[in-house]
């Protein structure tokens, strides 16, 4: 759900803490080192076991790797659903960026009084779970002045719109903390004094400075969109989530293989975020209910 910010601290603080830890053993809450190991190992087993068994399950179909070969080579829906979800994800990221960057920038620069309202709106997707959002969208756009549910194009518009809404909390968080790290006021004034207009300032000055924040927000959005099931299935989209769900009901070993591939994709997205976040003011972000 809401992203906690991790690793945002003054430079040198970590080293100071480490040094102090070496000088004196840290105080403990009655849980000794052995207790810590037990808790940690319990966590590791719970984390790892489902993954290991899923990998083992996916490799049971003989010859070795056949389940993977089956989905990758023989199931055109695997590739097509992944491409569809990836494309929808990219579209979501672009639209979300176009909406959030100018808003977050403008709120910081000119409209600090509007900030509570913007934050409230970006918090709403947590209050409205995906199943209710899609229910509401279906009801609002199934008839009336803008019927979107009658055509593929309309349904695609709805699915992208829903994902953009879902992305608001963490895109806003990522971009806003990115803006906090740079001096937008000075940058803006410098750009203005050289004659740049607002569009140019945003595109050529602000955006490049938000690279890390944007990329981490983007990869999180991508990870979420690719795995999303509820909204895609109610809007009857040929997306990856519904594909995997159906496969899970129909086949034995292939869903294990696709689950592992899906886990690998999530891992990749998070890995890129973690890598980018190293040594910079960056937050680890987490997504909402599924």
């Amino acid at each position: 759900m809401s992203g906690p910010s991790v690793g945002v601290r003054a430079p040198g603080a970590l080293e100071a803490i480490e040094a102090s830890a070496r000088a004196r053993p840290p105080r403990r809450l009655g849980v000794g080192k052995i207790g810590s190991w037990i808790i940690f190992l319990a966590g590791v087993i719970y984390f790892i076991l489902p993954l290991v068994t899923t990998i083992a399950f996916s490799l049971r179909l003989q010859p070795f790797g056949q389940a993977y070969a089956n989905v990758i080579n023989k199931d055109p829906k695997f590739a097509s659903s992944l491409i569809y979800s990836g494309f929808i994800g990219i579209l979501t990221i672009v639209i979300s960026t176009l909406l959030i960057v100018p808003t977050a920038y403008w709120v910081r620069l000119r409209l600090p009084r509007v900030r509570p309202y913007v934050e409230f709106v970006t918090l709403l997707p947590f209050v409205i779970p995906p199943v209710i959002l899609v229910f509401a969208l279906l009801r609002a756009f199934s008839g009336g002045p803008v019927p979107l549910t009658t055509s593929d194009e309309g349904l695609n518009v709805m699915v992208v719109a829903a994902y953009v809404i879902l992305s608001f909390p963490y895109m806003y968080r990522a971009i806003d903390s990115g803006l906090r790290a740079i001096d937008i006021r000075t940058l803006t004034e410098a750009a203005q004094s050289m004659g740049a207009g607002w569009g140019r300032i945003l595109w050529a000055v602000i955006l490049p400075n938000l690279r890390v924040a944007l990329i981490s927000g983007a990869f999180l959005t991508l990870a979420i969109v690719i795995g999303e099931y509820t909204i895609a299935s109610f809007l009857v989209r040929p997306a990856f989530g519904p594909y995997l769900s159906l496969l899970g009901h129909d086949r034995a070993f292939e869903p294990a293989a696709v689950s592992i591939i899906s886990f690998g994709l999530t891992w990749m997205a998070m890995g890129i975020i973690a890598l980018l976040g190293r040594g910079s003011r960056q937050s680890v972000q987490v997504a909402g209910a599924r």
Partner: protein
Amino acid sequence: MTVALSADAARGAPQARPGRRFNSAWLGVVPFFLFATLFMILPVGVLLAGSFEDPVSGAPTIQNYIDLTEPTIVEAYGTSIEISLVTAVVGGLFGFLLAYAVILGGLPRILRALLMTFSGVASNFAGVPLALAFTFTLGFQGLITKFLADSLGINLYGKGIGFSLYTKLGLEIVYLYFQFPLMVLIMAPAIDGLKREWREASENLGASPREYWQHVALPILTPTLLGTMILLFGNSFGAQATAYQLTSGSIPLVTLLISNQISGDVFHNIGLGYAMAMGMVVIMAVAIGIYARLQRTSERWLRS
């Protein structure tokens, strides 16, 4: 959701340039609010309006809300709340202990980095693939189920134990997979935020480690701890895909009842569906509201 609202906001806006009309500043945020209104606020407004209408005649009524007291619906809310509470408390406590263990428990530092990365992935590994992974592990044909039966003679699904992954308990075990990593991710920076000076001050005043935790550290961490548990509550209360994939709707959850309403295949009363959705939004709003409030309290202490 409430990181650093104040620092820059307090500085205030620069003076409006002479000649620039006041209203034009608002134009910059219009697209965002327009989009949110069109694709979130208005549609939910349609649900809200519909929940106060008779589905056939369109006349205003509160019958839909009265219908929420039907036993099946009360049971669904009860089950959803129970599962969310259990996973929030268990996930919260275990997540806190785990974060504590890797930060202050004297474990090698590398384990902490490992746990944080893994938590980032695991908290996002939800929905269909998660449900499938647990089916392969502890499901009826799961490898662990089979291993226990074949090698140790323990039949999880037998009469003696009576375990099933496709029940409330099973769902709770699965939900914990994305619940406690989230707790770890939020608690770790909070534990880091405990200042050395506080510990040293308590020591100088003669406090034992136990007293330090009881009177200083835990009270400071409590708002974060509670707030995050409430967040976890909302996280599992709103979940649909995981439960649907795992149980095909055999456990009555609010999200699954609403799903049935959307596809219209069980008891088609759309007005009731609207009211159920609104009930859910109200519960989520209360949870997120308390969370946001507690976050603000904890930030006062743990600002880094």
